[in-house]
């Protein structure tokens, strides 16, 4: 890699590389990236962002690791899997520049299960345990957030995600089609694809990801570590642009509404506004006749609470990789998180914009199974679950 030919020209903090290729997947939680790129936020920070929509997380990962993409809207877990060398590509140093959002993923079941009356966690557990049904669930990437929410939720209901059910990988936008074709019985995916399945009469939402962990970490702005090291000014400017965009989106209900209109366009989600908007605004209906306003719906900003790259958030994904045997040995949880999470760059960017930064890079959360995670004892936490695969070797069913 060459350093930028312009690096020597810039005394100040002007971006070394002013034009960046940014990957994203067609998901509601890419909102702040799209708004930053198209609504003048990037320009104000000396950047041009060329948005590159990707068809699958695997191809986004490959382009991010090869440097074809400078940065991307990315699954939290995916960044750590690439960094640790789990999965299809050799280990390659990665960086998390900021959090992009919390919440707004969901687990859906098929209309066939709905017709059988399997509309509650208890009914699902009964079906799996008493009738020996081996159901197939889809997630979006073997080490991604959706696999981890699905596994965590199933385990919290007494269903072993690796032994009691089958797991397959399906790109987010294709979930409803796979349900319709009867190839899968359920899935975990980001919005608007769970809402889209409900709208098309293809099943119902059994659990939201925020019911597993209110305000859980989800997508991040990721790049290869070499990018952050070679172009620190570009990386900081990129954080500023996206942080400013996320603040703008959450400034008013009208801004959120306009954001939904923009996202529904063919260049982004290519999905009707009626499918994108309700859950973006927190208005949920599950397809079983229940409606509610969700207090832990999509957070893109939440006064900066959704954006700080907490060390404990990054560490959590490693504890789950360990729990499910994706990591056979314990990594240096804190050490790896310190390498990956670019706290210094984030702090500089947030301070420049006047966005509050929590003082501690750890946070404490209570999850659905009653376990508390605060980052203090990752080794013990990874071993604290009744259902696990600590002794297993990664196996073929989860696509590795």
């Amino acid at each position, binding site marked *: 890699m060459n350093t930028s030919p*312009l690096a020597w020209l810039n005394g100040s903090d002007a971006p070394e590389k002013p034009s960046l290729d940014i990957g994203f997947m067609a998901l509601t939680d890419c909102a702040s990236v799209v708004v930053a790129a*198209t609504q*003048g936020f990037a*320009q104000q920070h000396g950047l*041009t962002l060329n948005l590159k929509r990707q068809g699958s997380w695997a191809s986004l990962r490959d382009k991010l690791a090869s440097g074809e993409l400078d940065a991307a809207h990315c699954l939290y877990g995916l960044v750590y899997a690439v960094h640790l060398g789990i999965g299809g590509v050799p280990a390659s140093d990665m960086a998390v520049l900021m959090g992009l959002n919390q919440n707004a993923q969901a687990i859906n079941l098929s209309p066939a299960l709905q017709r059988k009356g399997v509309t509650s966690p208890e009914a699902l557990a009964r079906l799996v345990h008493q009738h020996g049904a081996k159901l197939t669930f889809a997630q979006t990437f073997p080490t991604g957030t959706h696999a981890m929410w699905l596994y965590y939720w199933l385990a919290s209901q007494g269903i072993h995600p690796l032994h009691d059910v089958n797991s397959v990988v399906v790109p987010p936008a294709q979930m409803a089609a796979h349900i319709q074709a009867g190839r899968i019985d359920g899935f975990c995916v980001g919005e608007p694809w769970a809402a889209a399945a409900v709208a098309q009469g293809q099943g119902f939402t059994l659990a939201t990801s925020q019911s597993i962990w209110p305000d859980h970490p989800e997508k991040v702005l990721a790049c290869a570590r070499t990018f952050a090291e070679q172009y620190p000014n570009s990386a900081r400017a990129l954080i500023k642009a996206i942080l400013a965009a996320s603040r703008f989106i959450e400034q008013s209900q009208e801004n959120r509404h306009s954001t939904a*209109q923009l996202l529904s366009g063919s260049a982004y989600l290519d999905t009707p506004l009626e499918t994108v908007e309700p859950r973006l605004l927190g208005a949920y209906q599950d397809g079983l006749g229940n409606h509610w306003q969700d207090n832990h719906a999509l957070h893109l900003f939440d006064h900066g609470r959704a954006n700080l790259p907490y060390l404990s958030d990054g560490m959590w994904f490693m504890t789950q990789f360990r729990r499910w045997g994706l990591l056979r040995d314990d990594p240096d949880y804190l050490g790896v998180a310190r390498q990956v999470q670019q706290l210094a760059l984030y702090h500089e960017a947030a301070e420049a914009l006047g966005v509050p930064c929590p003082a501690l890079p750890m946070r404490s959360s209570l999850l659905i199974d009653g376990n508390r995670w605060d980052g203090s004892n990752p080794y013990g936490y990874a071993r604290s679950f009744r259902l696990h695969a600590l002794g297993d070797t990664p196996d073929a069913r989860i696509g590795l």
Partner: protein
Amino acid sequence: MLRILLIDDTQNKLGRLKAALREAGFEVIEAPDLTIDLPACVETVRPDVVLIDTDSPDRDVMEQVVMVSRDQPRPIVLFTDEHDPGVMRQAIQAGVSAYIVEGIHAARLQPILDVAMARFESDQALRAQLLARDQQLAERKRIEQAKGLLMKMKDCNEEQAYTLMRRQAMSRQQKLIQVAEQIIAMHEMLG
């Protein structure tokens, strides 16, 4: 294997470089002289490097080179018998690596081509970055101008004007710059 478009623009057509290039292991595609349409030829042949062997790089030669640099950018290496430093400077400004052909040995060709390609790549990157910067500046100016017009029209402050423009752009699935251009065009029309 590197694919080289070799243009023999010398009077005697000695083919003095062809043998040396083949010997050094390159794939050589020949063109007779610069009466060809060089940009079109580059488009068809898709060479990794364009190599021009010429007695003297006159205006016609430089014209062709400039056209390629603009439309079909490729590393261009020019070998010439011309010793005039002014001519060489002109050639280098047009974006080529220029060498005096005298005493060129096969063994020296590889490093010469490597340097030409490396330099080409960094020139291209620099050009793309400068272009991006120019475009950003131009767009920022237009957006500022539209914002100013809107502040007058709506009697609002800067932040409100930005928000209005952004909401308009987002609800139409457009970029901010597009709405800025519409505001400016509307203002010009209404005078």
